[in-house]
């Protein structure tokens, strides 16, 4: 059937499929009409009414039979044909198991990689929170400071936002926290969230036992010691105790009453972690070391989300929220000056792991589309070879009355069988690979980044399946288009498929080479930038430094006790064999914590009128720069004497000196921090603070004692093996307070490696897929070359008989393979030059057009093409002219 005919018949077929009764009625009416006319005519001829009727029915040849024949035309036969084709297709696949297995494997790879990446995108970016309804209407909320990245919100700001945002159906707060959990006689650290009381209601998640929080539980300071625990915790730690509600559990040394158990499969709302418990914001002081700040508009610690009302767009909501932020700026200039509030869709949530894996997944979506296309090209090629073999079969079917439409239907059905098997395999693969990202990102902490195979992923895979069916079914159909019935039947065994199929096959190979070349370039670029990240100095020495910390807040330490503890620990560790120096710092650079930030003022520096300079800083103890190996350019380090009773001091970095003092040594000058003037006592080198890839930025340090945090990290420079240091620290901490739990001890180098994790994941995934693509392309090239050698044995034999030697033939075949490869590489280079920009922020200090990278990709491609064509070429060179010509 021609395309035009399909256009006409499709609506009719659809109609008879979806409205069978109506179609049937109309058909009966038409026949009834005919009968009545016939009867009328018969009566006019003089028959009795009875006779006239019988005669009319007779002329029609049986009403029921005619109706059935019409119904057949309406497409009942389509289903029958389909079943027949399906059976036939399976028989065909069964007959050549090698071909079938290879084709299904290719498609499984192609569709499977897509399904895996879709499931990740779905489960991590688009709908990251299982059991939460309508996640497309959830948006993350964060503060915006000009010239800086995003900031969090304070509780009073949040309350104002929730009250005034009329376009929001709901707004809720969650703040990740860890807790020491005492069960029986041992303590362990677990992760939970501090949430607003409306949390469960806003999410539409209802505890399976007990209740969620009540509005009153938002209020007060440590007044409401209640907790909702996860299903997992209930099952594992409380053995599924049905009487759990009302029992108490010690969290961070405070007795909490268990009021609810979250449903199974609910993991909270933090991409990357499975939450184990939820406590109301009134318990803030117990779970955050910042103390009780519910009434402090300047204390920003909240990660919050809004759920927009149905039909409200992000832009509308943002407009209203910006207006609210502007009002807050106006009403509270002291704390909210220049602070905006912005909302992001969940997949751009700025404060969880989505930020880390997002760019990688975006690239992966494109990469897997390429892999799919390559796989399709491969299967198309395989089918093409087979359709050449089956040309006789097709000719016989045409000769015995099959329409070309039926043949096409048959070919499409066979394509459908292949792609359906591939899709099934692909979904299975996706199911197995759900947790693969976590394994790749493994960073020593429990990560939870599952892929989600829901109906959307299923639907997308089904869509891909249909697309693949069309592609792989159409390729051989294209070939039968010009099939001449007589030809293949006449010359039994001769090979058909002249120049036109050769052209399709070459085209397929060229596109395969082209696509895999792009992937190769992408993988090489990522590899190169990972290498550069690894080789970039973070600005501090990463070797021989161990990082650890103790959970003092959880153990109930207040600030004076904590200060005493840290002094004693420092005292005990200093001078121990193998320990060169020890220091504290609030936030480890390249770690996960957020640095403090403050508006600053500098004598003699005039900021532009609308810009309030804001700079980030860290709180560090004496010996910090020595321990981390950050060079001191002028002035001095902090000393033990720079404590809460001494004058306020600060140390600034080089970029800050350049920006605010025009490069002149600022030691002895003053700097305004949080409204207080502090004296600058030193200048240190720039280093990397949040990511290795960042550009130099202003940064300064204040003494830990003058801006105290009860849980700083502890850095130990040592010349001892790492394990012995760990046990030394454990021993000393234990001697001071046996109830304290130490955080995991790692080396600073490991910390830096973890910071490169997104690149590492991207490199691993893209190069794996690039390798796969290369393999597929090689198989395709090999297939085409072996086939064309097998086809042209006569020609090769003739050439040999006429004096060509083996080398000539070898060169002939290889040069053809190289021509195809060159074509593909040229297309690939052009496309790659356009596409590699998409790698964007995954690239570090590598131009997306790096010639070295393109060159090495070219080398790999050339070697692959050579090896793929070597075997066919060798076979060609072994052609026996006598035998070939005799045959």
């Amino acid at each position: 059937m021609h395309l035009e005919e399909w256009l006409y018949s499709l609506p009719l077929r659809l109609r008879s499929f979806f409205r069978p009764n109506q179609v049937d009625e109309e058909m009966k009416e038409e026949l009834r009409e005919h009968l009545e006319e016939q009867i009328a005519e018969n009566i006019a001829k003089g028959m009795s009414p009875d006779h006239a009727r019988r005669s009319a029915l007779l002329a029609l040849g049986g009403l029921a039979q005619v109706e059935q024949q019409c119904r057949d035309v309406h497409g009942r036969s389509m289903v029958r044909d389909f079943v027949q084709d399906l059976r036939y297709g399976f028989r065909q696949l069964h007959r050549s198991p090698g071909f079938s297995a290879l084709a299904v494997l290719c498609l499984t790879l192609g569709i499977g990689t897509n399904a895996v990446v879709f499931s990740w995108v779905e489960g991590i970016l688009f709908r990251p929170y299982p059991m939460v309804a309508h996640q497309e209407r959830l948006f993350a909320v964060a503060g915006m400071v000009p010239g800086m990245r995003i900031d969090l919100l304070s509780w009073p700001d949040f309350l104002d936002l929730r009250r005034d945002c009329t376009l929001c159906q709901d707004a809720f707060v969650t703040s990740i926290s860890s807790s020491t959990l005492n069960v029986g006689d041992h303590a362990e650290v677990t992760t939970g969230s501090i949430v607003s009381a409306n949390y469960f209601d806003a999410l539409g998640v209802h505890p399976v036992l007990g209740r969620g929080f009540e509005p009153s539980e938002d209020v007060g300071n440590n007044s409401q010691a209640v907790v909702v625990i996860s299903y997992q915790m209930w099952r594992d730690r409380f053995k599924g105790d049905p009487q759990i509600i009302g029992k108490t559990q010690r969290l961070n040394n405070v007795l909490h009453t268990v009021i609810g158990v979250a449903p199974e499969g609910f993991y909270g709302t933090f991409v990357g972690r499975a939450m184990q418990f939820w406590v109301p914001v009134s318990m803030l002081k117990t779970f955050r070391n910042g103390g009780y700040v519910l009434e402090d508009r300047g204390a920003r610690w909240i990660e919050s989300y809004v759920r927009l009302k149905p039909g409200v767009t992000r832009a509308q909501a943002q407009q209203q929220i910006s207006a609210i932020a502007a009002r807050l700026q106006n009403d509270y200039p002291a704390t909210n000056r220049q602070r905006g509030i912005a909302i992001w869709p969940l997949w751009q949530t700025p404060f969880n792991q989505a930020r880390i894996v997002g760019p990688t997944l975006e690239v992966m979506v494109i990469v897997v589309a390429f892999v799919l296309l390559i796989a399709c090209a491969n299967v198309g090629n395989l089918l093409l070879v087979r359709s050449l073999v089956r040309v006789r079969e097709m000719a016989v079917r045409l000769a015995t009355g099959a329409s070309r439409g039926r043949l096409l239907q048959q070919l499409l059905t066979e394509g459908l069988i292949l792609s359906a098997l591939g899709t099934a395999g692909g979904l299975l693969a996706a199911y197995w690979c759900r947790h693969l990202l976590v394994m790749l990102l493994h960073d020593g902490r429990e990560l939870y980044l599952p892929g989600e195979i829901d109906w959307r992923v299923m639907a997308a895979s089904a869509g891909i399946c249909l697309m693949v069916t069309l592609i792989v079914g159409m390729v051989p159909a294209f070939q039968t288009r010009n099939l001449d019935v007589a030809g293949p039947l006449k010359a039994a065994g001769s090979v058909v498929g002249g120049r036109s199929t050769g052209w399709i096959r070459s085209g397929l190979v060229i596109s395969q080479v082209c696509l895999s070349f792009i992937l190769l370039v992408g993988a090489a670029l990522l590899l190169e930038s990972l290498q550069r990240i690894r080789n970039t100095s973070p600005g501090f020495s990463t070797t021989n430094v161990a990082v650890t910390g103790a959970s003092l807040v959880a153990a109930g330490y207040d600030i004076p006790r904590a200060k005493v503890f840290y002094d004693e620990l420092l005292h005990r560790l200093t001078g121990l064999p193998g320990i060169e120096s020890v220091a504290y710092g609030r936030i480890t650079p390249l770690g996960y914590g957020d640095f403090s930030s403050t508006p600053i003022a500098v004598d003699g520096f005039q900021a532009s009128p609308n810009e309030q300079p804001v700079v980030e800083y860290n709180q560090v103890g004496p010996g910090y720069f020595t321990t981390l190996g950050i060079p001191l350019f002028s002035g001095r380090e902090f000393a033990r004497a720079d404590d809460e009773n001494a004058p306020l001091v600060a140390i600034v970095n080089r970029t800050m000196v350049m920006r605010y003092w025009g490069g002149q040594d600022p030691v002895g000058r003053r700097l305004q921090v949080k409204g207080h003037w502090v004296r600058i006592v030193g200048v240190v080198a720039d280093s990397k603070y949040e990511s290795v890839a960042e550009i130099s930025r202003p940064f300064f340090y204040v003494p830990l004692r003058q801006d105290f945090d009860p849980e700083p990290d502890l850095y130990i420079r040592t010349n001892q093996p790492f394990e012995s240091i760990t046990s030394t620290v454990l021993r000393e901490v234990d001697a001071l307070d046996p109830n304290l739990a130490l955080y995991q001890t790692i080396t600073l180098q490991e910390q830096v490696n973890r910071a490169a994790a997104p690149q590492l994941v991207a490199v691993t995934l893209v190069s794996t897929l690039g390798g796969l693509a290369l393999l597929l392309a090689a198989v395709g090239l090999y297939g085409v070359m072996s086939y064309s050698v097998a086809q042209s044995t006569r020609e090769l034999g003739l050439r040999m008989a006429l004096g060509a030697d083996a080398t000539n033939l070898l060169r002939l075949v290889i040069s053809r393979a190289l021509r195809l490869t060159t074509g593909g590489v040229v297309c690939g280079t052009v496309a790659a030059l356009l596409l590699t920009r998409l790698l964007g922020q995954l690239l570090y200090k590598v131009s997306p057009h790096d010639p070295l990278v393109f060159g090495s990709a070219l080398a790999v491609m050339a070697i692959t093409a050579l090896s793929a064509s070597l075997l066919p070429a060798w076979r060609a060179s072994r052609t026996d002219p006598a035998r070939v010509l005799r045959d």
Partner: protein
Amino acid sequence: MSKPADLVQGTLDMLILKILALQPLNGWAISQRLKQISSDVLGVSDGSLYPALHKLEHRGWIRSQWKSSENNRRAKLYVLTPLGRKHLEKETANWSRISAAITGIVQLKEA
């Protein structure tokens, strides 16, 4: 099957298309014209007419529409489509060629 045994495959289709090329008609009228034109020689039964019409419609060669006739009854009217006209022309040319050839052969044998 829907095809009458003594009718060359495709001939009925061609006849229907030819009839509809002159004017749009309903099923009954087509059957009357068929009998009239072929003087009952081809022996097209009314029973094979309707499946053939529906098949042609599915192939896009003819189109149908419901019209109320003069005596205020609904009738299904068939109209030739441009696609059908093209097909008719091709078939007619084919037919003339084949029939001329066959006529030639038949006469040759008699001579």
